[in-house]
């Protein structure tokens, strides 16, 4: 019994260490004053952050990442939420479970396969090397996260609340706006955060569909690490991690506040 407890704790800490160690290994290097991405760190400075914001390639890639990330978040959240609304409460129908599987497919299909297909298709429709093309590509892999998150919340929420609203005189679109969506908000928000993070992180599809003008931060890090291993990568990684964490925390807090209201 006691042995089991101890081994649980040991295994847990090892797993957590394994997951977090790479993050903690890279983060301090963002503050090095050396020109090389390695330990030991001779001294601390913020020169690599200045590099990120001043060097044109890095600045451009950050802006690109933000444009594409926001576009993807918007599109994936709208589409994913609509998809989840359509899929809920119909688990028993084989047609719907098929459609649900299709929605989730981009999670398991190798990105390389998707990338090749998209490159061919986008070239045909004039979307190759365009922001819209990259946003669509990222949306495809971002939508499953929104669908899963929103669907979970919707399936956990009580259908009777919507019936009650209808019986009290609310037309279907009012029920959607006043009851269904506000109740699904936590799922929508976490889905949106996931979609944004997915877009930031996405390299493979970007390699296939983006042109030189849509080079994202992740893409830039990827090529920098091949060309010259600069600590700017660590600084970019730092921005990534801190940025996504802050967004996630802020959104979670705001949802919690709006959901729970003032609790004495």
């Amino acid at each position: 019994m006691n042995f089991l407890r101890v081994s649980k704790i040991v295994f847990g800490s090892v797993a957590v260490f394994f997951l977090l160690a790479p993050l903690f290994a890279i983060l301090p290097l963002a503050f090095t004053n050396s020109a090389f991405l390695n330990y030991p760190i001779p001294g601390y400075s913020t020169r690599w952050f200045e590099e990120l914001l001043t060097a044109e390639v890095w600045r451009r890639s950050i802006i690109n990442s933000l444009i594409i990330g926001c576009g993807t978040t918007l599109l994936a959240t709208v589409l994913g939420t609509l998809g989840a609304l359509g899929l809920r409460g119909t688990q028993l129908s084989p047609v719907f479970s098929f459609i649900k599987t299709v929605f989730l497919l981009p999670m398991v299909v190798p990105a390389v396969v998707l990338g090749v297909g998209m490159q061919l298709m986008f070239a045909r429709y004039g979307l190759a090397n365009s922001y819209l093309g990259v946003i669509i590509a990222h949306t495809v892999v971002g939508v499953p996260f929104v669908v899963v998150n929103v669907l979970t919340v919707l399936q956990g929420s009580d259908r009777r609340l919507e019936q009650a609203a209808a019986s009290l005189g609310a037309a279907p679109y009012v029920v959607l706006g006043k009851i269904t969506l506000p109740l699904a908000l936590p799922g929508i928000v976490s889905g949106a955060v996931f979609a944004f993070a997915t877009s930031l992180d996405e390299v493979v599809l970007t390699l296939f569909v983006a042109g030189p003008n849509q080079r994202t931060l992740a893409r830039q890090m990827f090529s920098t690490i091949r060309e010259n291993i600069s600590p700017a990568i660590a600084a970019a990684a730092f921005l990534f991690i801190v940025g996504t964490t802050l967004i996630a925390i802020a959104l979670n807090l705001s949802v919690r506040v709006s959901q729970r209201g003032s609790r004495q």
Partner: protein
Amino acid sequence: MDNSFIRFDDVSKSFGALKVVEELNLDIGKGEFVSLLGPSGSGKTTILMMLAGFENPTSGAIWSDRKRIDKLPPHKRNMGVVFQNYALFPHMTVSENIAFPLKMRGTSRADTSERVKRALDMVQLGALAERRPSQLSGGQQQRVALARALIFEPEVVLMDEPLGALDKQLREQMQLDIRDLHKRLGLTVVFVTHDQTEALTMSDRIAVFNHGKIEQIGSPSEIYDHPSTRFVAEFIGETNLVAGSVHSIDGHEAVIRLENNEVIKVVAKDRLRSGSKVVFSIRPERIGLGAGPGNTLETRISDVVYYGDHLRLLLSGGGQSFVVKTDRNRLPPSVGDSLTVSFLPSDCWAVDA
């Protein structure tokens, strides 16, 4: 269409191959309190959901106030619905919940706040107006749900086991409150429950459902005293079912031979035929201890259970077992003793097996 306010006209509902409601015909008068009573799966909630508009009948028509409503969406039916789990909106305060139906009807702001205040006072929750539903007790949530379903002055209120989640004391209080509101506001109430006591104490009429069909419909006393089927007799209250065959019929009195060949006399009804098999229902409180007028039976006590306000005796006699309720002051002999019991022919009610 005489004085019926709500009418179910040959309404059936099936889910796939499963028939949930079969050819229901039911008229509900204006201002009437009708309970739909039955075990779970008897179709009573489905009937309520069809009336509210959340389910569509597979066939048949539903009328309300001489208008056909079965194709009308729920938000145009103007019926107040109180759900079993209250279905209060968790992201709104108590007063926002109650104001919701008025907001949907475009009531002016001043009028709304005035009526919300009155509704809160009616259910004695004025102090909790700004709380969220999650901060209220079950009974308080129930009262908010009632206020919300009544504030827009619907003519019909539908209640789906609204008291099921409350403890016994609160439930009895709410039963009285709802009955009082029904009388005071002249509401038409359709009340779904599986609790027979609730149905007996609150209703003008009770419809007893089983397997999607009405077994019997009538006033509480008709249902309790004159159950038409074995199912109704057993579902409403406690009863003793006595099986036998008709030995002879003499005017309005029939002689029944029990399975152990003892005979008892009962009131003859049209459907009794000499030689046919019959089942009788005798309520436990109608059986008296000791010899008396009417029928007497020699029995043996097999168990005595103390209930506080009464004693319940389990007896064996006449080839079967009987339950008898008796005054606790008349302490009977103990288990294993023999006991004479008696009951009137008029308290034996023949039911369809």
